[in-house]
């Protein structure tokens, strides 16, 4: 196209609304958040002053912060591990079902959790796990597996595993659908060629399928890590971070600090720390992904 022959200012009109929106509703609020992290702003008083790094030292010496960070790491790693395991194996199983109708039906059944609004996830699981009338505790007791109704959401040792199960339920369909889409891009010729050469199923999977979809899996792990690490709604609505902070992840810690206790400055500092952690994870992942891409090209 020859648009660049004369100076073409008209083209900016296309992207201007989007750029303006991102600046006003994204760059500016983010900037102000970083600025607040150096002040002693609260939501109660309108005046505030600059306090340097004192918010950061306060956060980094707060044992609750480290506890929340540790909870976040557990939450992310466990959720992701099981989401990947189940999502991936479900995609493989679904892919080897030959009957098209059956495959479509299973596919739709399996993606139901992904479509659930978070508030509905919270309510239905609270109801299923309810300590008096819940389906799961009652069933377990009726089958004689537990002596009395298990209290999944108020026993400190059970809370995090239970929340992880809920998160795996919600998250595995996304992995499954993406892996399924990637599996369909592997050309059948390669399998046929391998079959003629007498390759075994496992070898075919290891040497043809896996290298082909490695990048998709890599990207999925990046995206999911970040989403799960950032996720606030599920835990907040199911347990609110309790009992006694057992399920307080970093986003909930930030929310409580800023919104409940009104310490805007300190909560902003914690938010900036969260961002730095995420950027580090992202950078590390993208390094690995780039390396893979180069390997694939060479």
């Amino acid at each position: 196209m020859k648009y660049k022959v004369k100076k073409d200012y008209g083209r900016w009109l296309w992207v201007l609304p989007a750029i303006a929106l991102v600046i006003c509703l994204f760059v500016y609020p983010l900037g102000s958040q970083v600025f607040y992290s150096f002040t002693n702003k609260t939501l109660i008083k309108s005046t505030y002053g600059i306090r340097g790094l004192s918010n950061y030292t306060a956060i980094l010496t707060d044992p609750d912060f480290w506890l929340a960070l540790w909870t976040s790491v557990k939450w992310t790693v466990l959720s992701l591990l099981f989401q990947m395991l189940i999502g991936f194996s479900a995609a493989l199983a679904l892919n080897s079902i030959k009957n098209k109708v059956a495959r479509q039906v299973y596919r739709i059944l399996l993606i139901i959790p992904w479509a659930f609004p978070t508030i509905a996830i919270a309510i239905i699981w609270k109801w299923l796990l309810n300590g008096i009338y819940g389906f799961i505790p009652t069933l377990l007791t009726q089958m004689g597996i537990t002596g009395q109704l298990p209290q999944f959401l108020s026993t400190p040792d059970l809370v995090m595993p239970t929340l992880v199960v809920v998160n795996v339920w919600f998250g595995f369909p996304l992995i499954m659908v993406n892996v399924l889409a990637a599996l369909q891009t592997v050309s059948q010729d390669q399998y046929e060629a391998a079959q003629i050469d007498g390759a075994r199923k496992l070898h075919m999977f290891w040497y043809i399928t896996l290298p082909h979809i490695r990048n998709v899996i890599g990207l999925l792990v990046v995206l999911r890590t970040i989403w799960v690490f950032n996720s606030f709604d599920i835990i907040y609505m199911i347990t609110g971070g309790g009992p006694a902070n057992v399920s307080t992840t970093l986003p909930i810690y930030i929310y409580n600090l800023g919104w409940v206790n009104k310490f805007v400055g300190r909560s902003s500092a914690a938010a900036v720390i969260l961002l730095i952690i995420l950027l580090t994870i992202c950078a590390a992942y993208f390094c690995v992904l780039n390396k893979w891409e180069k390997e694939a090209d060479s």
Partner: protein
Amino acid sequence: MNMLTRLKRRMGEIGCYTYVTVLAVFAAFPLLWLFICSVKESGDLLANPTSMIPQKFTLANYHNVMVNLGLGTNIRNSLMVSLSTTLIATVISSLAAYGIVRFFPKLGNMMSKLLIMTYMFPAIVLVIPYAVVMGKLGLTNTRLGLVLVYLSFNVPYAVWLLVGFFKTVPIGIEEAARIDGAGRLQTFVRVVLPLVAPGLVSTAIYMFINAWNEFLYALILTSSSSITTLSIKLHTMQGADVLNWGDMMAACMVVVLPSVVFFSFIQKYIAGGMTEGAVK
């Protein structure tokens, strides 16, 4: 030998069916249970916590949440907010995505990387700035404020998705239209948009679901029951003195249904879009 391999294959298939069936029960059971409980009478609900068949089928719970608890207002609010967000975001982001693909090809790659960064951004980080800004603008506890905030995270992601779709439009078609004397905007609306219609529709539905399901910002920015969305209404219903689980289930069904129905239509497009760049 031949029989042995056939037997092996058969076993493998049975294994696959068993596995996906178990998973399907795990995945779909909560929705089924939600429905069953929403049509049970409240006595039945509490007396028989594991019975799959309601003693008596009743729509009383639905009637109660719609009429007595005024859920209709919140459905309207959610619809208004989600539809306006979707509409505005679709216009802004399709313009931008097309602009990036056609007029800023070099910058385009960098731009889409930046855009996806905004999508990975933790929602919690912007809670306080939004509360402060909306307070200053006098938009706290308004639907307009909510729409503005929802645009902030929907537009970047939509641009990113749409760039992928616009890239598939062959430039020759546009040149032909231009030679026939159509202006840029005319070419865009008459020629390009119809070609990417499926992508555009699925992006729009995705944004709608996003807005429909959003919780955190609605929690921060709206408080009164007449303004707020379904999610927040349900959240406050949980805090009632006497929690009526039958009502909760009926209200949940109302929130879940549009989401599930829309989702089954668009899941293929969304899945493709998300990791498309990574497929070699």
